[in-house]
């Protein structure tokens, strides 16, 4: 036994556990979260990648062994010939590009609301509303707006291009010079219609990020720039935007991730249709892996892996930025 503690006689201080407590403590604190996270997030990533080399319908034989069959890169080879895969990939690019509109529009609304008149706080929170409600609800609302028979578009169209006539029997018939457009059933427009709906909550999100950023813009610098004669656009570009850079960075990150994760709206509004024209990788994967045509887990996992690799570019960039931040501390 080593030396006893002076006076108090707490011999527990001599144990190995006590001497290494500073080394052990972090692991004990992190362990529960790490374990949980590993089981449901980290390990499944590798499992998915491995499943993508198999053909599997998700079933097990009587002995409880998986019925998966090793096919190597075959799933990936099939992807290269799969037209629906290319359509989904193309739509992902369209999402990435047009979803980005949320950033400047969010900034514009933030600038519009950045005043101190009575009730402005309430206005700001009401503008934020769309972000708080579920995308399922947003999808339903817009799906209904786009409906040619009774939606807003349909009603406006009828007002502009249709005539109501009452025939001899007394029934009302409407005659239109052209039928109202069914946007969600139109291959060329459906994706844009969904993105437009998706922009609504995303703009609200970007707006909040910018409103907070604007709160922290240094008033001294604005004053100094005013004295130098900077106003309006020049002020925004050269004085305000540089100070809003952290907000812009975050807005772009969340918008990119939102665009690549887009699933809810598509599932609610078109289910990838018509003819797969609104599919994105996230929805196509789901459709392939869990569908009425049989569960193609292997093929679905290959699509998921491609999506994951695309996302990995952004994740790496984000981590790299965070690493620079940490080093700078």
């Amino acid at each position: 036994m080593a030396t006893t503690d002076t006076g108090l006689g707490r011999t527990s201080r001599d144990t190995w556990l006590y001497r290494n407590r500073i080394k052990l403590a972090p692991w004990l604190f992190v362990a529960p979260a790490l374990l949980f996270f590993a089981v449901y997030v980290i390990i499944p990533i590798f499992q998915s990648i491995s499943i993508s080399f198999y053909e599997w319908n998700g079933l097990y034989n009587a002995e409880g062994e998986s019925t998966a069959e090793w096919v190597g890169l075959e799933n990936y080879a099939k992807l290269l010939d799969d037209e629906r895969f290319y359509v989904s990939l193309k739509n992902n690019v369209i999402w990435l590009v047009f979803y980005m509109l949320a950033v400047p529009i969010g900034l514009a609304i933030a600038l519009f609301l950045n005043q101190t008149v009575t009730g402005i706080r309430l206005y700001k929170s009401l503008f934020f509303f769309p972000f708080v409600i579920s995308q399922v609800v947003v999808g339903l609302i817009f799906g209904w707006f786009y409906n040619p028979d009774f939606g807003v578009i349909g009603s406006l169209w009828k007002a502009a291009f249709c005539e109501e006539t009452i025939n001899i029997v007394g029934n009302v018939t409407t005659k239109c010079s052209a039928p109202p457009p069914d946007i969600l059933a139109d291959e060329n427009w459906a994706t844009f219609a969904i993105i437009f709906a998706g922009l609504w909550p995303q703009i609200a999100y970007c707006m909040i990020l910018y409103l907070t950023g604007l709160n922290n813009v240094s008033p001294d610098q604005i004053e100094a720039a005013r004295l130098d004669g900077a106003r309006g656009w020049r002020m925004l570009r050269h004085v305000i935007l540089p100070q809003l850079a952290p907000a812009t960075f975050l807005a772009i990150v969340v918008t990119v991730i939102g665009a690549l994760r887009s699933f809810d709206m598509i599932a609610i509004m078109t289910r990838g249709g018509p003819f797969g024209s609104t599919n994105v990788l996230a929805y196509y994967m789901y459709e392939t892996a869990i569908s009425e045509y049989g569960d193609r887990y292997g093929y679905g996992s290959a699509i998921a892996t491609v999506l994951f690799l695309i996302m990995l570019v952004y994740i790496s960039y984000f981590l790299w930025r965070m690493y620079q931040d940490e080093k700078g501390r």
Partner: protein
Amino acid sequence: MFPKPIEQSSPARQLLYKFSLPIVLFIWLLPLLAIFMTSIRPAVDINSGNMFGWPSSFDLIPNYIAVFTDSEALVYFWNSVKVTIPTVIISVSLACLAGYGLAIYRFRFALPLFFLFIAGNFVPFQILMVPVRDLSVRTGLYDTVTGLVLFHAAFQTGFCTLFMRNFIRDLPRELIESARIEGVGELRIFWYLVLPLVRPAIAALSVLIFTFIWNDFFWATVLTQGESSKPITAGIRALNGQFVSQWHLVSAASLMAAVPPVVIFFAMQKHFIAGLTLGATKG
């Protein structure tokens, strides 16, 4: 302040600004207003094509009652509550522990582990779908509320840990150092010193996670099947099929689904926004 405070402009411009605010807001919230108006319309209006005109009568109460009596909406709603609240408690608790572990101790794996949580938080759901579904089926957790809770809690732990770690990291370090010199144990430092200090972060995180989980649709569709475990988001899609062309009922149900996150947001607005914008302001 940018743009220039409106009080410094001409009275005409001030007036213009004050008038334009409600108009812009009206246009911005038009979709929501429309769905609200529909939810209080009688069925006759919808069948006769009066979708946007003045309702022929106000059926707020009968419509909302009809949603609950004619469908499983109440079950869905209750399922959402049963999924959301335990998830918030579990993931925030785990993240407090992990965030403390990663922020306070200087050990070699602190940063790699932290980055692991961040990276995992950003992955697309689809890369987890097949294994998680398979795991749930094999462990009997498929189509149960517990299964959803366990998955959500695990996944949200990534974001929560990122959040708590950054918050705890900004606490004054000397506080913890001096407690250690006094001989206070690690667990007691965490419980009596750190936890009370991070209460605002816990509040912010809880409202945020509540909204995320309440609004989740993907996992609700992937991990549930029957009525007994379906949360409200997946339920609404089912209702949309059940109430074909009964738009007044579908819209009432949708608004019901939107109420809890909206109420939480209004009650805890400051915390909610503080949570969302974490990191937006620091250089």
